[in-house]
């Protein structure tokens, strides 16, 4: 009993960290820039395919593909942002949702065409597989690695946003774009870079996720609801909120599926509705 509880907590936290890595960029673009980008999961999927392809076709080592997934997805998102998204920054949410859902369908179709409809296999290095015994429990090495990556990214995000001049520019541009412009801050460019960084993180998360949750062309639709729950429960634009929401979601999802296999898939919705009834703006939502 204790064993399985510890196991569920551990697996849930690792899964939550992965959801956090992918969803935090969405929280930033929706919360800070007010853009509802439902195609965020497509960026994560692209990151997964970058890693899978570079390993299978080019023989790259797993770790070398991670920065590539980040950079390539960030660049792809910049193209999309310049070509399509920026036209709808001032449009209504319905327009944004319609556009980005269209991007999701295109991404699903495109991925099926290029990579085929089946699961993309990847083989992570041997030292990231198996378990390691610490105390009375066996810990999955890859999950430990995911938790460490999540902690690292959280730290980098908090330091970047709270302690750097660029972070201050983002906060200024969000607080009051007119005044930020009046001080010489190029608000458009700040938002573009922020969007790129958030998408790049999704790409990194997608690359890290292949080994845990798999990868096929339906990924952006299958996990969309998870990303949206993280953002809604965490509170728009809150890094801390996204982290806590993602971990709660990960643990509840794993526990629900373990203890109540029949109805487990519904548990997360019960949790989400209860949390949002308690705090409609999310755990750390402002406004």
């Amino acid at each position, binding site marked *: 009993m204790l064993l399985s509880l510890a196991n569920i907590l551990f697996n849930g936290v690792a899964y939550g960290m992965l959801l956090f890595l992918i969803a935090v960029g969405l929280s930033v673009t929706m919360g800070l820039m007010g853009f509802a980008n439902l195609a965020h999961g497509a960026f994560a999927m692209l990151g997964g395919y970058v890693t899978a392809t570079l390993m299978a076709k080019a023989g790259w080592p797993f770790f070398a593909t991670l920065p590539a997934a980040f950079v390539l997805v960030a660049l792809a998102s910049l193209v999309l942002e310049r070509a399509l998204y920026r036209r709808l920054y001032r449009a209504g949410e319905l327009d944004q949702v319609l556009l980005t859902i269209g991007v999701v369908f295109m991404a699903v179709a495109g991925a099926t065409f290029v990579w085929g409809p089946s699961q993309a296999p990847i083989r992570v290095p041997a030292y990231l597989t198996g378990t390691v015994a610490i105390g009375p429990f066996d810990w999955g090495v890859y999950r430990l690695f995911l938790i460490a990556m999540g902690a690292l990214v959280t730290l980098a995000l908090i330091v970047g946003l709270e302690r750097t*001049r660029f972070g*201050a520019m983002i*906060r200024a541009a969000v*607080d009051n774009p007119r*005044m930020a*412009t009046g*001080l*010489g801050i190029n608000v458009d460019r700040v938002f573009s870079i922020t969007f790129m960084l958030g998408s790049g993180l999704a790409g990194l998360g997608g690359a890290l996720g292949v080994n845990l949750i798999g990868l096929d062309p339906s990924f952006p639709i299958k996990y969309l609801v998870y990303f949206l729950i993280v953002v809604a429960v965490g509170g728009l634009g809150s890094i801390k909120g996204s982290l806590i929401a993602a971990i709660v979601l990960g643990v509840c999802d794993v526990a629900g599926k373990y203890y109540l296999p029949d109805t487990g898939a519904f548990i997360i919705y019960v949790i989400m509705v209860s949390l949002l009834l308690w705090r409609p703006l999310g755990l750390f939502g402002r406004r």
Partner: protein
Amino acid sequence: MADALLDVSGLNAGYGEALVLEDVAFSMAEGEALALLGRNGVGKSTLIATLMGQTQRRSGTIRLRGRGIEALPAHRRPGAGLGWVPQERDIFPSLTVEENLTVAARPGPWDLARVWALFPRLQERRANLGNQLSGGEQQMLSIARALMLNPVLMLLDEPLEGLAPVIVEELAAAIRRMVEAEGLALILVEQHAHVALELTSRALVLERGRVVHRAASAELIADHAALDRYIGMRQGRQAA
């Protein structure tokens, strides 16, 4: 006028369809302090916002040290030399006092040490967030933030509005120091005409979006008929 600091001519501008400023023209010399006066809603703030590129300009030119800046996008005007202290102060609430000052700072004679010296209270509150300041402190921060851009021309939009008399005195002293000791050129929009005229050397009066009166500040301050006519009631209260 080849050596003008600012030269505005034939300026028509407004918001959307509405034209607020009509055929506004004036110029300023280096180091000059200009009072921009007029009743509520005559276009004073619109003129400042137009200089900052925040309105729709229909026609006209704005030359700063001989360089046409009227077509520059708003975010490049501070780089051209304009420092803006908007009417609403517009402090960033989620930045600390120090971050408000450094987030857009540009190199030049004004740095943190010098604005701390000008407003010691800001230094005491350097780690506070922007939304934890009193109105007077916010105004000091707004002025200090514009100084950190090291502008050649400061645009101050009603910096003394709604503040306690003792704070007004402190800010007026700081503005006087900027003009007299530092030789910084500025445009001062103010409802309290007497305060503005004492701090400046020349004055411009707007009415319904047009320049209707130009005078030396010292002359206008004694010209009760003109003050009454262009600025009206408020002035009577101020004098009483």
